[in-house]
């Protein structure tokens, strides 16, 4: 008669046992825990003091905050509208606010699998038109606002989301082109992808801002916002193409062969069989590229567009609020963090589901 080994009966969970297992399980681990606790005790209370206890939430200027010795959140309270919307006319700022909501809704809706396909494409197209009409105005009784004044958060979202939306078809074309057996197409796709992946994004932005106008016919000028948008599109397309290519390579050859055996032409094969599978696999790197693209919108400060960081710089240039740049940076960092973290959680949830 064989005796089977049995696991020890589970002991009821207790705080002490959890601490022992997780924080003090080996001597090295215990030492680390003590070290970390020591550092935390040294750092966290002064930080809390600065950020909350001594902080001023309302104050007339930075000197008043400095008198209390804490963070100057009053700067944010006074300037938040300028940081978020920049030089957009004060009375019309409901328009960029709605634009931001619209773009967020579009992004969130794109995450829902049930909408993938035609309804999503229509939603995006309608969204793009709605954004341009809302922000620019000139029709439907809305006063016209020059693209120079589309600043701050709406600018970042328009650049990133618009760039993603328009780069995506180009990226799919490039990825398909890179796997094509036709030498001309393949050479062009490879050259394009390697060119834009090899260049730093700032260089591409500079080319858009500085060189692009030289290549336009004399007398024709395109607003800087649209030139920078083109830079985003061209740049994102190269990275998205690599992500899609990864998805395409993960499809077994059998799928291609079966689709061809069914008598589907090349484009039908791609549209009905290959791309749906490939894109689903490619979503994590696609989302990663989008997160990178959204963070890169902060770089437009270097070509003279007024994004969130530039708005903070203008705010801290005001003599009353000169020293409040840390609070401004924290505010902007929080905004970027919220967006990027949400997107990366979404991507990770997709990975886990598979």
């Amino acid at each position, binding site marked *: 008669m064989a005796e089977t080994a049995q696991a020890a009966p589970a002991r009821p969970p207790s705080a002490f046992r959890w601490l022992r297992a997780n924080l003090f399980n080996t001597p090295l681990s215990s030492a680390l825990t003590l070290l970390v606790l020591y550092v935390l005790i040294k750092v966290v209370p002064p930080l809390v003091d600065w950020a909350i206890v001594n902080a001023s939430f309302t104050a007339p200027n930075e000197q008043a905050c400095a008198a209390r010795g804490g963070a100057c959140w009053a700067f944010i309270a006074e300037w938040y509208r300028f940081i978020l919307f920049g*030089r957009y006319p004060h009375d019309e700022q409901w328009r960029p606010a709605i634009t931001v909501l619209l773009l967020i809704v579009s992004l969130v809706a794109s995450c829902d699998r049930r909408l993938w396909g035609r309804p999503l494409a229509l939603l995006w197209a309608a969204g793009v038109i709605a954004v341009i009409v809302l922000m620019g105005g000139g029709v439907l009784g809305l006063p016209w606002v*020059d693209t*120079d004044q589309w600043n701050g958060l709406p600018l970042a979202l328009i650049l990133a989301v618009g760039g993603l939306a328009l780069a995506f078809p180009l990226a799919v074309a490039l990825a398909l082109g890179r796997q094509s057996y036709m030498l001309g197409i393949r050479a062009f796709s490879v050259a394009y992808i390697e060119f834009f992946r090899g260049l730093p994004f700032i260089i591409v932005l500079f080319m858009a*801002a*500085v060189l*692009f*106008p*030289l290549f*336009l*016919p*004399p*007398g024709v*000028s395109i607003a*800087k916002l649209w030139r920078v948008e083109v830079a985003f599109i061209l740049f994102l397309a190269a990275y998205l193409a690599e992500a899609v290519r990864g998805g395409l390579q993960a499809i077994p050859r059998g799928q291609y062969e079966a689709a061809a055996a069914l008598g589907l032409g090349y484009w039908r094969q791609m549209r009905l069989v290959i791309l749906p599978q490939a894109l689903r696999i490619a979503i994590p790197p696609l989302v990663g590229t989008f997160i990178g693209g959204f963070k890169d919108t902060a770089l437009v400060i270097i*070509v*003279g567009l007024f994004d969130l960081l530039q708005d903070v*710089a*203008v705010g*801290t*240039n*005001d*003599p009353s609020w000169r020293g409040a740049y840390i609070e401004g940076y924290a505010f902007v960092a929080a905004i970027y963090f919220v967006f990027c973290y949400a997107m990366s959680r979404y991507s990770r949830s997709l990975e886990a589901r598979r």
Partner: protein
Amino acid sequence: MRSLKWFGFAVTAVLGLVWGDSARAGPTLDGVKSRGVVTCAVNTGLAGFGMPDQQGDYKGLDADTCRAIAAAVLGDAKKVKFIPTTTQQRFTVLQSGEADVLTRNTTWTVLRDTEQGFNFAPVTYYDGQGFMVAKKAGIKSAKELDGATICVQPGTTTELNLADYFRTNRMTFKPLVVEKLAELENAFFSGRCDAYTTDRSGLAATRAGKASNADDYVILPEVISKEPLAPAVRHGDDEWFDIVKWTIYAMIGAEEKGITSGSVDEALKSEDPDVKRMLGVTPGIGKALHLDEKWAYNVIKQVGNYGEVFERNVGSRTPLKLERGLNGLWNQGGLMYAMPFR
């Protein structure tokens, strides 16, 4: 091979279509009239020259020059659009056509006038380069700056003059080169650099606008270069160049004749033939410039003469407290000299 022949035909056909197109001239004046605004590239924030106020409106000598051009061309000094530019962006913004004129305390040099493709209108501010240091450093002369760290903006004549001056005087220095003016000023006031160098008017503007206590900083006596600050336009558009040029001369000429924004209405009734020609009472000059005959009247009425613009932005009642000096009228010891309106 057949395919290669096809290929060759296609390329040749397309190239032929493209190269057959001839150059079209793009007059700036037409563009300005169709857009309805004069677009000027100005400083991101230099007190007295180009500085946005709380409402985002740009104030300063350069901003007023831009408004004068708008008044001359469009009849309304408010029809302006300002593009704030750093030193590294200003030339490409003008070259690319984004801006119609560069009014951004820019020095007139031969290379900019020729190689870089710009034409410079009359000088609106004669200046020179200097150094500013903190008073507690105890420095009395620029010759004591050997080994110092000096804040300077890139892409400027300032940068080049600085290197030349130290080379000539056999001194060395470490540059701190930051493109954004606000960051550079912060670096100087936080003590990161020992000295800040730019045009002396810029030094005064920075001290007036940014220093917590202006008396803690002293501008050293040495003037190490000539910095004539003038508006710039692109090569290849004589019509627009003439308009900008004569707008400046109108402002100077009005001061020569003693006409201010308050007295210009009365000057319309003047018997002086020069004044009558300038203000359009005797027609001819407006037509020659392809502008309305009241172009100069609009400039003076809506913006003022040169003296008024100077006093309003950088004069003795402003925090900058700059003297007229070289910028006074020619018959009062300065260099401001309007060409004849005839």
